């Protein structure tokens, strides 16, 4: 079927099977490989991208559901002078939040997707852990990721 979507600011029309997963459209058809595949069943969050501003698992979304949607991948964010992303990058580097890195781009997208909601309140450590519950990371034990996110939010609340 033909679907129309906006990917990283560009209008695209694609002819794809209706059940082809968004993650395969992005990775295989468009070469956008920042989002990874960890489980293929919505459990690990490694494939998260923004669909209409919200972080969702691209391995769960068939082509039919994205007709007319606005998709932003990490490649798109990285080239858009996004201050919040740059600040998160700094905080993650400071805390060495990535180990193998397979889970990180998905976590970055979730953080970015929640940014507008998070900027107005200062979530506790326990809340941040809760926000990450849709992600799996086997390397870090989450500690450095949680500390990185808390640091990022601290930076954002200072003008």
């Amino acid at each position, binding site marked *: 079927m033909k679907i129309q979507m906006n990917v990283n600011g560009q209008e695209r029309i694609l002819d794809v099977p209706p059940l082809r997963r968004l993650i395969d459209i992005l990775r295989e058809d468009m070469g956008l490989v920042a989002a990874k595949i960890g489980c293929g069943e919505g459990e690990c969050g490694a494939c998260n991208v923004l669909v209409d501003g919200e972080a969702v698992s691209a391995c769960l979304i068939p082509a039919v559901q994205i007709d007319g949607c606005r998709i932003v991948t990490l490649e798109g964010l990285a080239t858009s002078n996004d201050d919040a992303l740059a600040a998160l990058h700094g905080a993650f580097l400071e805390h060495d939040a990535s180990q193998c890195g397979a889970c990180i781009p998905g976590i970055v997208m979730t953080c970015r997707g929640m940014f507008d909601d998070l900027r107005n309140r200062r979530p506790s450590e326990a809340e941040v852990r809760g926000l990450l519950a849709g992600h799996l990371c086997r390397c870090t034990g*989450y500690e450095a990721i949680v500390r990185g996110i808390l640091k990022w939010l601290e930076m954002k609340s200072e003008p």
Partner: protein
Amino acid sequence: MTQADRNEPRRRNASKLFYGTEPFVDDLPAQGDWHGGTVRSRIAHGRLIRLKFSPEFDWSQVVVVTAADIPGKNLVVCHEEDQPSLCDGTIRHYGEPLALIAAPDGELLHKALRAVEPVVEPLPAVFDPFESLKGETRIFGKDNLFLEIPISKGHAAKQFASCDVVVETNHFTPAQEHAYLETQGMRATLEGNGVRIEGSMQCPYYLVAGVARLLGIPETDVRVSAMQTGGGFGGKEDFPTMLAGHAALLARKCGRPVRMIYSRSEDMAATTKRHPAWIRRKTGLSRAGQFLAMELDVVLDGGAYATLSPFVLSRAALHAVGPYRCDHVSICARAVATNHPPNGGFRGFGCPQVHFATETHIEACAEKLGVDPVELRRMNLMKPGDAMPFGQLLGPGTYPGVVLDEALHRSRFEERRAEIEAKNRTSERRTDSGDFEKRGIGLAMFMHGTGLNAYWEKSVRSRVRLAATAEGQVCVLTAQAEFGQGTLTALAKIAAESIGLADSDILIDHPDTALVPDSGPTVASRTVSIVGSLIHEAASRLRQHIEERAGLAAIYDPRRLKAAIASCVSGGDSMVFEAEYSPTDDTDDANTWAPPNAYPAYALGCCVAEVKIDTLTGEIGVVDVHMICDAGAVVCHRLATNQVFGGAVQGIGWALTEKLAWNESGGMRNASLSDYAIPSAADVPEIHAHFLDDQHSERYRYPIGLGELPMEGPGPAIANAVAMATGRRPRRLPISPEWIVCSQGPEES
């Protein structure tokens, strides 16, 4: 200033990992690659009569490889030569590879895989190692025993008679899935007369040997490039040899690049797990609490092929009594074949299993004697110069007692224990008012010898190379893979400091066997310890050379040093320096599995864990974890601390939630990340990590190796905390809510 705030180099590829631009193998551009897949057995044991290819499928669109297509030896190269690359007629486990298929796209591949039906004649299968030892079902050799390692010191059997107290316990630790977030993946391309492999792996040179043997070509015709690897934990130690072979066979047959990327369910069902272990432990003590005699039986379920089982067994046997002194010890350790898929290396490599038994057994001993388990440990912990059961003396500066004291101090163990005891007493009375919470605190000691055991470390003959450039920079060339441990960052730092250059003037990349020498596998916590020491040696030579050439006594300024190196290279000096591993003492060549000086040094640890238990639902929450580690010098504190966090959380998962379920054919039934529960951020507490490393002792001048150590503490520490909370000792992991709420006594094993 906390330890992690020190001014240290950042992880080298941190930015690329953040933006998702550091390529994993499946991130490589398509380049016309075909997709490879595997036809697998669905029975545990039997004969493969033939493969039935459905006439409804157009087989001209795809390529099929069976054992008959293998030009070299049908073998997955490892220690024993028992595992075929593709089924040789006998199926020995569920998920065993029977044939391979490559297709131009993934969808067609899946159609083709579904169009093959193996015709089999099932045989009786055995999944229990004790059943297997009876030998009624033949899997390996004449007795299904991969290896038996006996270790004995003194006269344990005689000594028990003169002990005041004898305590005997049985323990079981379960299989564990690695669950690295990137599944196994490999790409093979024909190149010149041979083949090029790119993929997810820990040990590039294992693949060189394996692919060459399988294809019957010289090793020089196999080039292996490790990509950024999405977690390994031992699961990408031996298995990638098989996968690289499969990709190479397909690439050779279809004449194009072939990419094989496992789905999560295939990865979980077909690849190795941590060895399940059955451990019987018997200790005789004096009334005062001294360990007088010990007897230990360790049985590992190796699965259908030997793979790394002998090596895991060796480490388990050598660490079986833990950091404790005892003059009369008898150990019998066996790795047994069953019809489960092969079990293999997993962070800790036999140590988590034996430490679980030791550290929970000691608590039972203390209870029997009526003494404080902490005091019982303290009384029996080794000191430098004390002998281990296989003859090695604990090295200078190695003080388990200091690690224990540091852990007690940092976790306020005794204070917390008293508070919890008091609270538990009152909350018992308040049960009717709805307060069903009990708390417990427990600790465990653990230790880990660095590197492969002396015999095998010697046989690897690791080599590293440093090569200077005309810009005055230095390339570090080793075969060590990067899978999140920070290999590239740590080895570069060792080189920078040993040479005296700025960190930014060290060049290091993912290993490519066309460029790097064989510095051995990336396993056994040997990267910074063994390979790091070789880099230090080569770097010292480079430095000495440059000082002589430049006619300077010593160059302390990195910029001047860089200029001196640049002018040397520009002047035609090749400036390549190598170092090769040479053991300091004569290793007994006959003693492969328990050499007397087994490891050059031992890393030590102590874990304190606090749990809360809902006595109504059985739910167990870990509320506090302290990890005290003594691993010699710490190369990069930030990275090392994060390694400890990651290892500790794997240990928490192993202790509480990671339960493998088997199907009737001995395969993994819950082969998905939704059915096999690894911890999420919400399941684990903040973890406190601390290193003993800033003392003035010789021990802290060099790194000992840390990668595996942190995995080994939480299992027994949590079990001991649960015992305090419930009054019942868990003898097996994982500890389930069902066990907590069931009203019977301690679980039998």
